[in-house]
């Protein structure tokens, strides 16, 4: 594949994303949260409260001009904490997805390309991992390693990579029959070189789509782990943990649990919608008008 056609394809893809209103909206939300998490210390109204400084005299204030999302049980500004929480959730999503891809994709490509015994062994291993309900497996892992944000992220990555191994394997099996791969084989390029130089770049599309949607699943799973006490620990402004601490105050001070949860929902739906649109756009079968290639 030459550089010229690649850039043309990319152009068409970008154009199609631009035309898809839902894709643009979700991209906008994602960008918004990325900017918020990078600039958190500067845009949060009360950065020190965002990081956990209690203000005893301001407990449970309803949303107002000074505290747009109200204050929590320690008098901290909920908006500031939600802003700081964005950093944690986005980081967790990126970390879990990247680690899962880095483990799963090479294994899947190798299994698919070489076939035979290697394939058989690697795929049986992924079968076993996939037969665990992933969140339950993650719970057992964190319970063993000890609760905490880092252990929660590690556990989620460990339960996630087999999906990428399977996806990458399926890609490798189709791509290895392509003429350019066969040609490289004929001139004697080494197997592993073919895997990483030829298979990897051409297998990336579905992996990127899956990765985008998994950002959402990873953020949700981690919020869930924090909610049941296995992830981030107080005074961390992690969203799931905030919902968990705030839930007993729901009927009297609704803003405390509601806003952090709303943030999780917004981020998760944005990544899912964007991934969904991306799949439709990148898959030639569902590609709509304008996709003349």
């Amino acid at each position: 594949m030459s550089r010229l056609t690649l850039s043309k394809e990319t152009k068409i893809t970008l154009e199609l994303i631009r035309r898809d209103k839902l894709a643009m909206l979700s991209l906008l939300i994602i960008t918004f949260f990325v900017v918020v998490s990078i600039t958190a210390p500067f845009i949060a109204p009360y950065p020190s409260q965002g990081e956990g400084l209690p203000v005893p005299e301001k407990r449970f204030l309803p949303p107002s001009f000074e505290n747009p999302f109200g204050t929590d049980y320690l008098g901290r500004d909920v908006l500031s904490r939600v802003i700081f929480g964005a950093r944690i959730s986005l980081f967790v999503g990126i970390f879990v997805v990247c680690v899962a891809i880095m483990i799963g994709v090479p294994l899947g490509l190798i299994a698919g390309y070489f076939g035979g015994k290697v394939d058989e062994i690697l795929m049986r291993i992924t079968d076993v991992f996939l037969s665990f309900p992933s969140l339950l497996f993650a719970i057992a892992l964190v319970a063993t390693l000890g609760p905490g944000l880092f252990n929660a992220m590690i556990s989620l990555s460990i339960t996630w990579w087999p999906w990428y191994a399977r996806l990458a394997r399926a890609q490798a099996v189709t791509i290895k029959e392509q003429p350019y791969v066969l040609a490289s084989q004929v001139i004697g390029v080494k197997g592993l070189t073919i895997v990483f130089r030829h298979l990897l770049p051409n297998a990336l599309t579905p992996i990127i789509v899956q990765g985008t949607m998994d950002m959402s699943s990873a953020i949700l799973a981690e919020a869930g782990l924090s909610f049941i006490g296995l992830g981030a620990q107080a005074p961390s402004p992690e969203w799931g943990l905030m919902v968990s601490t705030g839930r007993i105050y729901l009927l009297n001070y609704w803003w405390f649990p509601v806003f952090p949860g709303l943030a999780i929902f917004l981020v998760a739906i944005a990544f899912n919608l964007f991934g969904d649109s991306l799949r439709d756009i990148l898959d030639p079968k569902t590609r709509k008008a304008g996709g003349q290639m």
Partner: protein
Amino acid sequence: MASFKTYFLKRIILALVVLYFVITITFVLSHVVPSDPAELYVGPKATAEQREKAIKELGLDQPLYIQYIRYFKNLVNGDLGKSLRAHTPVLHDILTYLPATLEIVILANILALIIGVAFGSYSALKKDMFADHLIRVISVGGVSIPSFWFALITQLVFFGILGIFPLDGRLSSDVQLFNPVHTVTGFFTIDSLITGNIVAFVDSVRHIILPAFVLATYPIGLVTRMVRSMMVEVLNENYIRFAKANGFRDNLIYYKYALKNAITPALMALGLSFAYSITGAFLVEVIFSWPGLGTYTVNAILENDYPAILGVTIFGTIFYVFINLFLDTLQAYLDPRVRLQ
């Protein structure tokens, strides 16, 4: 049906192999990974004496392969160890809490199947029209909403503001006192009905609606998406066009000929959603104080009750493996193509 039998046999062997590895992995997790497995089993507050006792009981002073054989033997005999808090056998606890969880999980999946198939097929019929876009956003929303937060929102709206559903629990305290449910199946909605306890039936239905609905949101999204994509594909098939050209009524074509082919993906989605529901129920149960496995596990987590947590993991995984075995077999039975791969 010879090929079906072979398929079934192969699938059972695979399930057994998977179970073997699952048990091995949990063994590694509980005996090899931790630097001090005894502490996990007795908790950080245990005395030296208790530790010694646990090490003896669990055989932690033996070589690893003997521990492994012992662990395996215990599991095969249904011994998942004792919980740290109550000192009751974990398996006994699990079986006590299981019916409550199964009740909402099953109801949620039935809801998901009905609503998901309806949404998915309607969406496919109205492809690229407003209804299709709306259903797409709803289904993506369903898989994106954090269930524990959505549960709180429904409590806020339906209990706090509208006051039409109870806040939490399985039965109101007065009903529990004056019209207690006699356990037959462990499902309160069914038990109260077959014992003719109408007061308790109405009350238990009122209590189960919110948790079951919240638990169903994720599977609804999943089933909708799978049924929609399958229906879109099927509606382009030649035999559908042929039926249309022959002047068959649209409804007959859609619901009799096309929808039949969407059942397989719906079953696949159901397998996934069952997996989700087992753990999804954990978070939802906590919010609704639903006395099921989730509440049990989360309490175990809060109190560092390691044997209980590990027991639930093993039990849940075995349950999940068998659900998948069942669904795969059903699928192979309904769709001959599956058997041949």
